[in-house]
């Protein structure tokens, strides 16, 4: 159906290229992208350049950075290499962030889409469920979930996803309510398209831009959440993550600043990067700002 519409557009530039143009012109957004790229590079290329097991005890505990040239960032309270921990921890932390964002999107979009599209009692029911989850204090609720099950990386991601989907659901619902009254949706209905078709193939693609922005910000939030849970001792002790490093090092903050500060800085930079990229995407996708 849209094939004909596409060929009739003469301009070679699609909406994505246009968005990229706007994104590119924002220094803040580009800085965010740079930060993210560096973090991803470090965590994925790092293990090939610096192979030290993050759980291995390599040196005296709590040696400061630079104490020994082979251990540039010092050691933690057990004598484990901080740099190796940062590299390995980045992978786990990013994985939790992305997994949690994915879970949030899946739950939030499905519930929001049905509520927004059908309205009526379906909307009422789904929104009451959403509100129920919304009024629970997120950190406490996540703690309960992680405590009930084992604190494994997957469960932590699941817990974060479960507590953060209501926002996405509400956003999706609002978009669906707006779009379902538009003429092209009525046109699809007129030619006999089924509900599923309209929801997933017509409305969803048009509702995506704000959802992508929201998903990006969710990644940042999930990383902070993971760090918060770890600080309370609720992280997977068998997978090195930045949160775990902070959680097990916090007791030593006064004696050895680097144990907690370095993973903390990494979390700060990553979340900053994610937020800047999210803001950039928001500007790029928001038509009202395009004339800037």
């Amino acid at each position: 159906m849209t094939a004909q519409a596409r060929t009739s557009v003469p301009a070679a530039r699609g909406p994505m290229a246009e968005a990229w143009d706007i994104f590119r012109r924002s220094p803040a957004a580009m800085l965010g992208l740079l930060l993210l790229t560096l973090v991803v590079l470090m965590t994925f290329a790092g293990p090939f350049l610096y192979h030290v097991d993050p759980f291995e005890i390599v040196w005296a505990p709590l040696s400061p950075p630079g104490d020994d040239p082979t251990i540039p960032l010092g050691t933690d309270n057990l004598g484990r290499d901080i740099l190796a921990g940062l590299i390995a921890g980045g992978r786990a932390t990013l994985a939790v962030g992305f997994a949690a964002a994915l879970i949030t999107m899946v739950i939030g979009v499905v519930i929001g889409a049905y509520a927004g599209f059908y309205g009526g009692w379906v909307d009422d029911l789904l929104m009451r469920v959403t509100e129920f989850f919304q009024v629970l204090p997120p950190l406490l609720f996540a703690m309960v979930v992680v405590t009930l099950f084992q604190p494994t990386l997957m469960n932590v991601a699941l817990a974060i996803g479960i507590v953060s989907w209501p926002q996405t659901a509400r956003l999706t619902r609002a978009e669906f309510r707006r779009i379902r009254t538009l003429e092209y949706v009525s046109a699809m209905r007129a030619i006999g398209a089924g509900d599923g078709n309209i929801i997933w193939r017509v409305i969803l693609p048009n509702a995506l831009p704000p959802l992508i922005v929201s998903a990006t910000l969710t990644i940042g939030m999930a990383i902070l959440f993971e760090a918060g849970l770890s600080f309370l001792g609720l992280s997977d002790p068998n997978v090195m993550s930045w949160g775990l490093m902070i959680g097990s090092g916090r007791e030593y903050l006064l004696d050895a600043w680097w144990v907690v500060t370095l993973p903390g800085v990494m979390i700060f930079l990553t979340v900053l990067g994610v937020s800047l990229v999210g803001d950039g995407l928001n500007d790029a996708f928001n038509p009202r700002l395009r004339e800037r």
Partner: protein
Amino acid sequence: MKLTPIFSRRTLLGGVAALIVLACSSPLFAQEEPQRGGTLVMASTQKPRHLNAAVQSGIATAVPAAQIFATLLRYGEDFTPQPYLAESWEFSPDNKVLTLKLRQGATFHDGKPITSEDVIWSLNVVKDNHPFSSMLEPVEAFEAPDPQTVVIRMKTPHPAILLALSSALTPILPKHVFDDGQDIKSNPKNNLPVGSGPFKVTKFEPGQYIVLERYDGFFLEGKPYLDSIVIRQYQDANSAVLAMESGEAQLYPLLDSTRLIRRLEKAQGMGLTDKGYAGIGPINWLAFNTKNPALSDVRVRQAIGYAIDRNFVTKALHAGLSKPAIEPVVESSPFFTEDVARYDFDLDKAKALLTEAGYGDGGKKLELQIDYIPDIEEQQRAVAEYVKAALAKIGITVSVRASPDFPTWAQRISNYDFDMTMDQVFNWGDPVIGVNRTYLCSNIREGIIWSNTQQYCNENVDKLLNEAGVEADQARRKDLYAQAFKQITDDIPIHYINEVPYHTVYNQAVQNPPISIWGPMGPMDEVWLKQ
């Protein structure tokens, strides 16, 4: 003691020197005239449910209960019993009958006299209800031939009886108050009990504070020195230490965080001691589930023992403040012996044993899980993480399993749902009370924490431990325990890591801080505050 020469010089040099001595050395003399009065605020992170130590074990209840209740005997800094409520005692020649003479004129906090009737009633309550059933298990009968005499008849000699009659283990309760037909374990009077000790409890807000006030009719003339003791409960060691630093509290026992101990060492006006914990005898250890297919092989357990470097734990993880532990009892126990299998760090031996058992290089892959008691950072979690790293070096993959809270951990361990676990277990003064429970075949009791959860069973060990329990001769008893400990360490159902570095912190105004074998679990009638 070092200052004695100055004393002699004073007599020679006269007034000037005397002034200097008075000005600068007075706090160092132990034998100063005690001052009366004042309120001692004791910081605590322990939260007792009630205050009746006759039916409840554990430090939380024992610390206040030792102030509220007197016991028949008490201990000083060594394992020699001293008179307390009983002024004298003697064993029959066959060591099966112990006769104790009670002090004249002793009264409960309601003014009624403490008689032998109360004593035997209390001992029966302990025998029937206290979790440490082995304490009074060999007792056949408690008898009260006259109001000042108590006779304890035993089926066999039972040398642990003297220790069991001390401190907070067998408090003397007023029969006329507690014998009211209610179940003693849930009696509401356990919250504000009428006691027999140096202090009476006047307020108890669970989770907040306990107020103890001087009992003027206490049977030891002139004691206690303090007007009152307030036990204030803090959320964690950090806030308790802050309270000590700000002067809000003057005494804080049972501190085990080496980081905080090191910090307090530098603090002004603060004293620190590791004395007072010989009775508790706290050991931090790694326990094996001997029914695990891999861990049922003694060579695998020995390999793990050799792969763990106790020095790393005590020196690096615990800042040099904890002592290595090598056997079922702590070094300060009278039954400590050097002649045991120590498993000093030796990676080559560890690898060889593992290969012999069919694991390690070229053999089967070994994967194990380790648990630990939650919320005990340095002693438990950090050591569990170290064990993971240490065993990786001999090719054992260890995953650390976190428990969200103590009951979850206790449930897993006591139902044998574990491979290895870090644990902390107390000696409680005599092996019969605190050691046997971990090793006797008969104490493999599912669902009960701190029983023989390793499911270790060696009949020879059982025989030795049981013989030692009824051996009245101290030297022969010590020898039997030495044999038992040798066998146990050879079999290594438990790998001992370190003694918990409990310290007592006190403000310099606090004189005679509690350093008997029971430390804070002993009566504080001799503690006084210097104004």
